């Protein structure tokens, strides 16, 4: 379980952008978090991804309360979470070839010798050919780079995936291909997903259930009751 309890977070303690928000993702579940731009949903996603320390509230990951964020988080927790961001150009080192970009999590955790095999294993189903893997980010399209960023997020076989507007820059076909790849990974590993976005149609089609930001932040405090927006996944 990924449990966010009464999270308050932001960039200025006097004016937090996330106030007292709770959200739970069951193992293997896909939850879509919907909200307009600037509402704070990305900040909540960063908290869940251990990338932003909340001002208050707790995050419990598979029963273990999280005490440190960013570099202070224990490696076992950090590697349990894979993150994909909105803008692949901003989340990839321009100096790395795509193969090295995908292998980076393996290197960082001292598993360099596995890299070649794992990269090939990840790249093939995403359509990343050996030719593409030899290139640097400026030599590929946004869609190709985002595929590499997804491969990087999956390199350590995370139990949880956090996807923040991962398809906002992409065309319809690339979006469908990326979602298909994520769902394939989830169906083979049982990983849970928190997908953040503003596209109702997309998230309702993609996720088991969707939650609207307004429902999470309603002042009555009974936020969990408002979570159960009916899913429309059956159509797939």
């Amino acid at each position, binding site marked *: 379980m990924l449990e966010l309890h009464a999270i308050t977070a932001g960039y200025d303690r006097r004016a937090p952008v996330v106030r007292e928000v709770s959200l739970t993702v069951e193992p293997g579940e896909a939850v879509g978090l919907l909200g*307009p*731009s*600037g509402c704070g949903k990305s900040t909540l996603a960063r908290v869940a991804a251990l990338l932003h320390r909340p001002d208050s509230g707790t995050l419990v990951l598979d029963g273990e309360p999280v005490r440190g964020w960013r570099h202070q988080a224990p490696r076992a927790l950090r590697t349990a979470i894979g993150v994909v961001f*909105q803008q692949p150009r901003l989340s990839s080192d321009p100096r790395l070839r795509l193969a090295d970009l995908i292998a980076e999590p393996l290197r960082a955790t001292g598993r360099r010798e596995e890299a070649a095999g794992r990269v090939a294993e990840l790249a093939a189903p995403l*359509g990343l050919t050996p030719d593409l893997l030899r290139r640097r980010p400026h030599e590929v*399209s*946004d*869609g*190709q780079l985002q595929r590499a960023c997804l491969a990087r997020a999956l390199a350590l076989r995370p139990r949880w995936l956090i996807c923040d507007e991962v398809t*906002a*820059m*992409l*065309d*319809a*076909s*690339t*979006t*469908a*291909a990326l*979602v*298909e790849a994520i769902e394939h990974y989830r169906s083979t590993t049982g990983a849970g997903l928190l997908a953040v976005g*503003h*596209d*109702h*149609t*997309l998230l*309702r*089609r*993609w996720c088991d259930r969707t939650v609207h930001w307004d429902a999470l932040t309603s002042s009555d405090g009974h936020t969990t009751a408002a979570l159960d927006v009916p899913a429309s996944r059956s159509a*797939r």
Partner: protein
Amino acid sequence: MTQRPEPPVLAVRGLSVRFLMPGGRQVAAVTDAHFDVAAGECLALIGESGCGKSVLASALLGLLPANARTAGRAHLGGLDLLTADERTLARTVRGRMIGLIPQSPAAHLTPVRTIRSHMEETVAQLTGVRGRAAVRTAAEAAAARAAFPAGHLDRYPHELSGGLAQRAATALALVGGAPLLLADEPTTGLDRDLVEHTVDELRRHVDVPAGAAGASPGAGSRRALLMITHDLTAAERIADRVAVMYAGRLVELADAKAFFGTPGPRHPYSRGLLRALPEREFTPIPGMPPELGDLPAGCDFAVRCERATDACGRRPRTTDSVACHHPYLPEGVRA
């Protein structure tokens, strides 16, 4: 051929753009594009990222990098945009004949100047309005035309939301009364409500005569809009006609109603794009677009196409606005 009462605002004939790369390599970014855009009409140019859409826009504005070579013609108001020199482009085309609505307006505006300052400079440059008070009034009127709130005129670009920055950029594009508006991915990164709002406003600027700009050269006639986008929902909402681009070529040109509704698109690639939408089948087109520097000899789409046969080893000719050997036929017609 000439059934339209007036000639098109923009007529593109056989436009090609090649980038010359080190080692003698060539990248075929745009190949043999033919299309028109009429006054009061919106043509949406759609396709996957990297298919050459934005290069086409840059070619029309004369903003290609030095290693680009163009061929063909692009007629706008008696001028061929592809052969015009920089002086002509700078003094008569950009802003005056073509208003550009950029992809990310927040990055397009000067960060250290207010929106009012942008507006006043643009008004002074592009219109005959002279005198401080007159320019100020004209700038406010220009902002109002794109529904930019007067109370926000003294703000800096970073103080604006994405939607307001978009309106500011649109207002600037409208100042010169240009007969052609060119919108390059105007809705990228905006949320759905804002996309619909932006698109509806663009449509409004096509539907009302450009004459509202006062001393504009195109007074009285309606604008034409060429919108480049990968957002199919936005295209459906705004477009009269749709041009589909794949690997640098226009593979289909269709009426928007028929394209998005029935009988639907005729090129297999266009069908695939629509099928990928989450409100439709949500299934991707297998594979990825080919490299523009290494295109196949035959149909560029054949390797990803479910209808491909041996015939697709030859390049298809564009017949009836579709470049395909095996197009889907309009309903009720049998081959």
